């Protein structure tokens, strides 16, 4: 069934604005948030978060990663306590000091990080706060699955078994359960934080139908997404966030206006000139027919001085590709040649030491990258301790010289000593520590996996320049980003991945955002149709 058919079917079924839904007007503000602020350590995530929500609207919250959208949603869900600011619901000031307080006010949320209980059944997850009770107030455990089945069916989901545990569901299925759980609580305002990120196309359609229906019933749906098309498709109003502040609320925006508002710059201005490799530059990394869990026969070669983009929709095997090149996932087959020598990479330590060195800069800076409470120095030299030690003892003087040199070169720390904890640095500086680590390791092949996530524009700019200069120094860079624009502006060659394979290679003039998106999306449409 085509996308249009689905949508028309929905509009036929459901009246867009029935008589029962109150007319939206300036007086009918359901929720007003003003001047919300929140800091995490040295990082101010939200400086002046404001938002005004009305009944029966779909309100898109847009902004770059790190602009403060998620923090605002967490504050409004009672998960995070704000440092300052005021929230009014129905005109009355409210205190949102716990998730249940938010719930009582009719605020429901689907969080970006999944909050399902992994070893309790889907039914238990769905009904945890309204368990069916029988005699003596005891929960009727036996009727949980059928109750849950009814709930799922009510929202049009018939493909998920309520007796299953989330551990054994796919990411998309878990996301659907999460959404149904929030909907089942009948919220007056529903926050969806990047709810479509892990959903395939047909489930995004399902979600939008559902949102439509909720809107008609008078519910306000707040929606964040990094896919602009989705925002355009469904939002009644759009609020733009930048650097922890609300910039504007508009009934509609076109994409370039939005980008200007979101970044404060024009598109393209923040990118350095595209780095180019010498045409006859030798290959640093050659991958032949690589197989791994989620990677299905990928081949490519990365030349010295080249920034090679890995594109495609999220979850098409990019992460698995990066992890298997770095030895986190064992490849199921294929050949990896590093600087002309075939290498077996079974663990990250192998990759780091593989001939000319492979390094991974992960997306999740806090979970997979840095050791936050430890000194900047320890974070920088962890991979090269072997080189920096004699008889198992670290040569402190040598280490100090290296670390101080690097901190100067990358301008890390603003006067901090190498012995101070990494967590005292700002997000951008933390990111530099993560990249700087591999400069010390003299890794020639750098795998950048979505490193600009949650980074402010100024630091993004610094990172782009760093990537360009690393390439200019002759390193080879493999770059994946959830922001296709970045790939388009930094890479001279892009491999678009789909279902674990390289679906298309774009080079030279073909490398632009539209074409990359087209290559990843159009084939998806073709495959579905």
């Amino acid at each position, binding site marked *: 069934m085509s996308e249009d058919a689905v949508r028309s079917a929905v509009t036929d079924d459901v009246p867009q604005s029935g008589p029962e839904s109150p007319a939206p007007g300036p007086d009918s503000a359901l929720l007003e948030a003003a001047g919300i602020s929140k*800091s995490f350590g*040295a*990082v*101010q995530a939200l400086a002046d978060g404001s938002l005004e929500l009305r009944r029966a609207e779909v309100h898109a919250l847009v902004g770059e990663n790190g602009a*403060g959208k998620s923090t605002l949603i967490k504050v409004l869900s009672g*998960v*995070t*306590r704000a440092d300052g600011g005021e929230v009014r619901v129905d005109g009355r000031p409210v205190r949102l000091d716990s998730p249940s307080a938010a719930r009582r006010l009719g605020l429901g949320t689907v969080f970006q990080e999944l909050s399902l209980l992994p070893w309790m059944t889907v039914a238990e997850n769905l009904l945890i706060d309204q368990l069916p009770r029988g005699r003596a107030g005891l929960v009727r455990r036996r009727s949980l699955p059928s109750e849950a089945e009814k709930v799922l069916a009510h929202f049009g989901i018939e493909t998920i078994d309520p007796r299953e545990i989330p551990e054994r569901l796919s990411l998309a299925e878990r996301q659907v359960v999460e959404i149904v759980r929030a909907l089942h609580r009948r919220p007056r305002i529903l926050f969806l934080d990047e709810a479509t990120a892990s959903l395939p196309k047909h489930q995004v359609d399902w979600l939008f139908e559902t949102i439509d229906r909720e809107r008609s019933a008078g519910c306000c749906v707040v929606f964040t997404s990094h896919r602009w098309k989705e925002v355009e498709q469904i939002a009644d109003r759009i609020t733009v966030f*930048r*650097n922890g*502040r609300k910039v504007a609320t508009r009934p509609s925006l076109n994409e370039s206006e939005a980008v200007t508002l979101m970044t*404060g710059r024009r598109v393209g201005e923040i990118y350095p000139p595209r780095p180019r490799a010498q045409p006859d530059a030798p290959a640093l990394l050659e991958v032949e027919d690589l197989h791994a869990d989620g990677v299905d026969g990928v081949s490519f070669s990365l030349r010295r001085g080249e920034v090679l983009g890995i594109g495609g929709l999220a979850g098409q095997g990019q992460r698995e590709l990066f992890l298997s090149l*770095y030895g*986190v996932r064992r490849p199921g087959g294929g050949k990896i040649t590093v600087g002309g020598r075939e290498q077996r990479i079974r*663990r*990250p*330590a192998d*990759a*780091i*030491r593989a001939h000319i060195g492979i390094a*991974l800069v*992960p997306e999740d800076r806090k*979970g*997979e*990258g*840095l*050791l*936050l*409470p*430890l*000194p900047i120095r*320890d974070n920088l*030299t*962890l*991979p090269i*301790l*072997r080189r920096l*030690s004699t008889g*198992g*003892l*670290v040569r*402190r003087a040598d280490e100090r010289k290296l670390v101080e040199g690097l901190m100067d070169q990358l301008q890390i720390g*603003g*006067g*901090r*000593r190498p*012995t*101070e*904890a990494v967590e*005292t*640095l*700002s*997000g*951008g*500086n933390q990111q530099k520590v993560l990249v700087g*680590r591999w400069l010390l390791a003299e890794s020639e092949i750098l795998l950048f996996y979505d490193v600009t996530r949650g980074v*402010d*524009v*100024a*630091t993004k700019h610094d990172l782009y320049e760093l990537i360009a200069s690393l390439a200019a120094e002759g390193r080879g860079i493999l770059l994946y980003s959830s922001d296709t624009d970045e790939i388009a502006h930094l890479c001279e060659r892009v491999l678009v991945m789909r279902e674990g394979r390289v679906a298309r290679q774009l080079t030279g003039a073909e490398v632009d955002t539209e074409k990359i998106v087209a290559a990843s999306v159009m084939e998806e449409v073709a495959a579905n149709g």
Partner: protein
Amino acid sequence: MSAEVQAPAPQRSWLARRSATQRTLAYSFVVVALLLAVGVILKPGILSGSSLRIIAELASFVGFVGVGQTLVFLLGGIDFSVVWVLNAAAILVVAQAAGHNSNLPVALVLTLGVGVVVGLANGIGVAYFSISPIVMTVGTNGIIQGLALGLSKGLTCSSCGAHPAPALTSALQGRIGGVPGVVLVWVGVILLISLLLSASTLGRRIYATGVNPAASYLAGVGVKPVTVSVYVISGLFAAIAGIMLVTFGGGASLGLGDPYLLESIAAAVIGGVSVLGGRGHYLGTVAGCLALIILVTILNAEQIPQYAREIVYGGVIIFIVLLYGREKRVT
């Protein structure tokens, strides 16, 4: 432009620039100083040579076991098997030497070997089979307990009642410059472990693994070998503690090691070592050992009965961790 406000570094106080480890280390030594001050007020004799000597010696026994507990804590684990490794070591070193110096080298090697083997088993179970440290070490504790009791027939074997080899006793209980050999060994151990934690590559890897194993693995740290080596060190030092204790008491006895599980944990905790991993230092545990023994000395001097000592003991542990061992508030 940047929303991420960078706190201006130069204005931060000296204390604020210290790491959490350094701060709690400072607090734990303040606790020792305060307890010592209380001791001097209640019993001026506490600063006499003989009193200090006995405090240091008693603290050293906790300190040897505390080496392992500290390192295991730094990884976010725990080692319950120290009790019977200690007991088994005490029995083995006495029974194997049977009071003769000529048997001592073999006895020592065997005894330390037992500690290493148990530690190895613990480490492999925890690192390679992902068995919870509590379960694994409770299990090996039982195994080693059964073996020790069974092979020594409940400490009734012919050589079990022997005195420790004279050379061992004279080396560890003899004094050099008024300081017992056991205490000198402890000073050496303190230097060694401090060097390990502060200056060695293994120390760096231990802290990194304790803070975040996933991130450490991605930075090339062999998380599993590091875990195994830490449990091996723990087993080794529990065995060393057993050897030290037999020379102090003049022989092996059942229940010799029983108090040391609780005390080693208490010492590490008072020293600011976090049971969640990644924070703390052996020097803190050393302060914790001294604090505990000074506390006991004061309670003894005040002729407070045994039961009240246990109550004060528990109360002090909770009081101290309430002062500086609380977790950060979530959100």
